[in-house]
């Protein structure tokens, strides 16, 4: 028996299905340095001739913060939830209150398992009195869709709610940065001014001749518009955006610039800051967990003694003493000296770590025992042999913590 006989046709492009967005061919022809994201491939960054990957990421971050960036966010899950009990259903699925969301507005929501642990997050848009569009993580769309179906079919079958997975129906393109509004105005067709489209609102209309739902939401801390268009029109919209954005300094950016910018803001990433054992409260997201609601999935679990322990691992920010040193992802903080023999007690680990081009120094996020009470402490992260990185515990919002850049 040869390995070839076992593999059969499952090799090359058929080894595993690669999901591609509407703009995939353009990305491929324009320097995309690919990375797998769930079954999708997404540009990690767009390389210019002769450019190194880190140089491209730095350029993309700075350009988005200073001018305007374009991101293919089509892989985000989009689940339509409709029916007279849709609001009630989403109040049970999300930790926060969704039913009070006015039509035309967006709200950030968290979903927990029955054990109280965070497993997906995203923005919910209320399309109508009985209709909501729930955005999920890129890897979570099928899981969240199945999760909703399971609850509706097995536990809450009395609720009049239908769901549909619209992830593939729309291309979603984020226009991000201080010149983003100017750019959409140049594309023409919709009022995207501050009064018509404030932060956390959305509008439906036509942009550059393409039917669009424009969400004013932000994962970067910049004023930002996520535009959903029919997937077959995705490339046409992308082209129109590039034309309108060219005089404003528009550059496309990839997933790594997205990751860096969200970390600069202290925004969590499912799978980085979460690992199936982390609650919203551990991440400082208690504000997104309703204290008034009678029930939601995870509520009772979150009242258990182990989930309210004050010394649980909690998310903090870290600033290394040497700003040029970037902590390795996963590095552990130790309590006291590293022992020569036997295990050294550890306090927690680095969940996200980057060099921030915006701040000109390294930043990191970490889950640390009783972290919320350790602000100002300095922790040791032994890396290898005698090398140890010292870092100060800070609040995890490194850039524009008051959100002034959004208030425009």
């Amino acid at each position, binding site marked *: 028996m040869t390995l070839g006989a076992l593999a059969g046709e499952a090799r090359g492009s058929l080894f*595993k*299905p690669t*999901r591609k*967005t509407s703009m995939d061919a353009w990305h491929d022809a324009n320097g995309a340095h690919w990375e797998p994201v769930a079954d999708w491939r997404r540009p990690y960054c767009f390389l210019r001739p002769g450019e190194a990957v880190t140089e491209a990421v730095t350029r993309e971050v700075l350009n988005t913060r200073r001018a305007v960036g374009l991101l293919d966010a089509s892989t985000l899950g989009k689940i339509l939830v409709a029916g007279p009990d849709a609001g009630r259903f989403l109040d049970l699925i999300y930790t926060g209150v969704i039913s009070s969301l006015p039509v035309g507005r967006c709200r950030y929501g968290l979903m927990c398992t029955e054990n109280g642990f965070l497993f997906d997050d995203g923005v919910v848009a209320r399309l109508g009195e009985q209709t909501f569009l729930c955005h999920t993580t890129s890897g979570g769309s099928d899981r969240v869709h199945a999760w909703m179906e399971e609850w509706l079919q097995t536990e809450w079958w009395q609720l009049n709610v239908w769901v549909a997975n*619209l992830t*593939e129906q729309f291309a979603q393109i984020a226009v991000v940065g201080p010149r983003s509004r100017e750019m959409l105005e140049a594309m023409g067709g919709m009022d995207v001014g501050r009064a018509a489209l404030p932060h956390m609102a959305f509008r439906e209309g036509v942009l550059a001749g393409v039917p669009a739902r424009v969400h004013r939401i932000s994962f970067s801390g910049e004023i930002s518009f996520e535009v959903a268009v029919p997937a077959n029109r995705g490339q046409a919209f992308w082209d129109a955006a590039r034309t309108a954005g060219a005089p404003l300094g528009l550059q496309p950016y990839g997933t790594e610039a997205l990751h860096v910018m969200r970390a600069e803001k202290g925004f969590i990433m499912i799978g980085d800051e979460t690992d199936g054992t982390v609650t919203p409260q551990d991440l400082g997201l208690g504000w997104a967990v309703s204290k008034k609601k009678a029930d939601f999935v995870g509520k009772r679990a979150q009242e258990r003694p182990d989930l309210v322990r004050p010394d649980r691992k909690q998310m903090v920010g870290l600033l290394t003493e040497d700003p040029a040193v970037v902590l390795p992802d996963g590095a552990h903080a130790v309590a006291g000296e590293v022992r020569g023999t036997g295990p050294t007690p550890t306090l927690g680990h680095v969940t996200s770590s980057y060099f921030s081009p915006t701040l000109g120094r390294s930043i990191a996020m970490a889950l640390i025992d009783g972290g919320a009470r350790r602000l100002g402490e300095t922790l040791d992260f032994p890396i290898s042999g005698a090398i140890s990185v010292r870092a100060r515990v800070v609040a995890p919002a490194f850039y524009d913590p008051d959100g002034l850049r959004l208030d425009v």
Partner: protein
Amino acid sequence: MSDVEISRVPGLGMIALRADLDEPRLAATLRSVGLAPPAPRRIEIAGDAAAAWMSPDELLLFGPDAETAPRIADLEAALVGMHHLMVDVSDARTVFRLAGPGARLVLAKGAPVDLAPGVFAPGDFRRTRLGQVAAALWVVADDDLRLMCFRSVAEFVGDWLSVSARAAGVAPVLLPAEPRV
């Protein structure tokens, strides 16, 4: 003459409709727009439109792309007050046409469905898997089959069909196709 002609079917409008399929009002509404309500695992084709059974509470309606929006408006008007979800999903999926005596052989390489003529007959519709991806298959005429997959894996499925045809000893011809169900 080749054994199978494979082409993408462009310009198909698609509407997802979730509802209690036993509602008499639903069947009457479908008939009012010229569509017959499909039985389980069946597709009812009427000219350039069709209604496919997706699950015990979901139908997929096909028609010319340009008629999707007015058709949704007509159906919504007829179903006011009846709990349902209706949404345009025309861009979410890709449909392939496989025509010729080799069509069933090419699909049988990857789908756990008995595709024998007489077993999988005209009007039969099956949600299944093709290789590693979710797919739906249906029969328009004995040598004229359709394959539907999500748009993000359309390139993968196209590659898969070429390889499957080769492995089945069938000579595939890739063609542009007309928009029909």
